[in-house]
């Protein structure tokens, strides 16, 4: 696969962006990428329903992880509140499909929209905090929202909402929807990161004050990233809700969604494009391996998370990259960040 930061440089060098990608990535890498995508596209034809469902959930996790990666990994905003975006997305789809008989596809699009609107609204108070204050603020916000939804009878309170399953796609279609979402999530990151905002984001992550001095309107840039991130999480939530067929606030707004996203990204490699994907494969494999020991699986995940933070700050992918001496590897400063 390819490396982002280097790409952006190449990108600048070349006449046009597409050209640069091609010029930089050896045909081999492209072939590899194409091969993987093709394999995933054809999977439903060959695999059994279980595998399909498994890969489908992995798509959702990749999307969620990339969404967190954009703010956590690239902008340095440690959000502990992504569950809120996910949950809002889920409820939007549920409500639209149940009460307004909106079709599945427009419904999930709305989910993305609602989530980002929410992000924009909360950004005004929440961006006044930096670092850990931001982390706590987002956590508190999403918990408050959860409690609200548990009690709000208009959205069914604790009993939640039962979607008209008849109007939701079949597992195979869900697979492709998830597939599309994962690609979009990753694609959006690619686009954002080597267009102008990409520089702003990483500048803010590395040194917010210096970034301001370089003319970066940090608020607007952060807002953009936050909104996009929320949108992806919202889409994921919407799709997931339709897939479940019935949602209730306890689990759909549960902090577990945030935990999953963070685990995945940190284990895979913060601030890298491939990291979250690797992380998803890793965590899924782990939970599959231990599927008969739910709690033990989570304990191990926690242990791994700590070990990674302690000894592998660049994450699995980041570390591999450094060892394989892939361009622009962050070996030197990884621990300092």
């Amino acid at each position, binding site marked *: 696969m390819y490396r982002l930061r280097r790409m952006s440089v190449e990108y600048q060098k070349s006449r046009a962006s597409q050209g640069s990608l091609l010029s930089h990535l050896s045909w081999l890498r492209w072939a590899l990428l194409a091969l993987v995508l093709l394999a995933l596209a054809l999977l439903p034809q060959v695999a*059994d329903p*279980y595998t399909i469902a498994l890969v489908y959930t992995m798509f959702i996790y990749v999307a969620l992880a990339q969404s967190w990666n954009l703010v956590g990994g690239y902008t340095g905003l440690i959000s502990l509140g992504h569950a809120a975006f996910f949950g809002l997305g889920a409820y939007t789809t549920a409500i639209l499909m149940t009460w307004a008989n909106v079709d599945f596809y427009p419904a999930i699009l709305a989910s993305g929209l609602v989530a980002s609107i929410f992000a924009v609204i909360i950004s005004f108070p929440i961006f006044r905090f930096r670092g850990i204050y931001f982390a706590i603020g987002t956590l508190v916000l999403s918990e408050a929202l959860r409690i609200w939804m548990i*009690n709000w009878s208009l959205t069914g309170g*604790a009993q939640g909402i039962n979607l008209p399953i008849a109007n939701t796609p079949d597992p195979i279609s869900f697979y492709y929807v998830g597939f599309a979402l994962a690609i979009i999530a990753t694609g959006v990151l690619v686009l954002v990161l080597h267009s102008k905002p990409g520089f702003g984001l990483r500048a803010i992550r590395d040194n917010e004050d210096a970034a301001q001095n370089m003319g970066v309107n940090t608020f607007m840039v952060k807002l953009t990233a936050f909104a996009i991130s929320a949108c992806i999480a919202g889409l994921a939530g919407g799709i997931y809700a339709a897939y*479940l067929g019935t949602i209730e606030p306890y689990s759909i707004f549960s902090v577990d969604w945030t935990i999953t996203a963070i685990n995945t990204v940190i284990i895979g490699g913060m601030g890298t494009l491939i990291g979250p994907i690797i992380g998803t494969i890793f965590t899924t494999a782990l939970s599959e*391996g231990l599927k008969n020991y739910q709690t033990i699986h989570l304990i191990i995940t926690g242990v791994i998370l700590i070990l990674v933070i302690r000894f*592998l700050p660049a994450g699995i992918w980041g*570390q591999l990259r450094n060892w394989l001496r892939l361009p622009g590897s962050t070996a030197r400063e990884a621990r300092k960040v």
Partner: protein
Amino acid sequence: MMKQTRLFQLIMVGLGLMMLTLLPACGGGASSGSSSNAPKQIVIGASIPETGALAAFGSYAKWGYSAAVADVNKSGGLFLSKYNVKVPVKLILYDDQSQPDQVTANTQRLVLSDKVNALLGSATPPLVIPGAVVAERNHIPLVAGMTPIRAFLGANPHWTYAWDIFFDEFDMTQQQFLTMNTVQSNHKVALFTDNEQDGVVMGQLWTQNAPKFGYQIAYHASFPVGTTDYGDLIRRAQASGAQIVIAQMETPDAITLWRQMQTLNYRPAAAFIEKGAEPVQWWNALKMAAQGTMVAGYWYPTLPYPGASTLRQRFEKDTGQTYSQHIADTYTAAQVLMDAIVKAGSLDAQAINTAIGQTNKTYVVGPVDFAKGPAGHTSPLPSFMLQWQDGQTQIVYPQNKATARFIYPLPPWSAV
């Protein structure tokens, strides 16, 4: 330090790669399902709350399902006419920790990975419905008990693959008033209902029914499951002067409520603790404080149904616990499902589903007929009123079924 770090990094990455290689293995591992013409076994699965707030119900479901399956297997399994052989039944149970999303995950796994031929329900609407939805989507028949039928239908009026055998809230929410009519009271009721499916549905029904029977809902508290401090609600109920408390909540919450009522010295003349006071845990936690509390029931060992009394003895012999009516409906649910499989004579989900629909027979829990429900797919069980007396539940209404004297009014807390 640095060296150590590098070492760990190696280990970590190694681990990572191991995982990556592990994944496809798992994907593959998830396939089975014999294609030889006669199936080796019939797989029935259920997600049940073995732990968590609803664990009490889970334990009965576990016993009820297992007992029914064991009985069938004793006689060599189920006869499938299509293959003209008896095929043993394999029952797979997963714990859902009383969490709806866990039910979904478990049921997904049962259907996709374990390739079950049919499903049994979890306990109570919040857990049964997510499972039913999965069954519905994957066209696998599911038979459930422990789910009041209107809550069940509220989730989806047009079930095609999910079936429910339990009491009808409409009928059940009259028992309290009928019972009270046999004694003197100020006809003022304080309602405590959680905001889960059945809590909401029954809350509404009580509010509707009360006037019909000449009772007044003096105070209605609605709150989320897991609420820890009921002080404010109790004070309001007390202030409303209600002599009758009707609650609909999970057992741990009910226990908390009852304790805090004692702390705050609110003592109604009669208390109906629906759902919460059903399992014996209620009595075990409160002992004499629970004396005289009532809960609507739909089954009793002395009822004239086949094997009723023996089922109770069997349970208490197996487990050493006091029985609960839930052993009956879960046992029955499993029986109904397996009878349907025999009727279908094959493992074709469609056929089994149809067969379930045609069920019309009196089981240990009573007559089962899915045509009787307010809408299809539900078979209502007639309810009556039980009262906790010295660690046992006794029928106190209707009088013709009564097994003991009706303790009324409750003695003041000081006397407990």
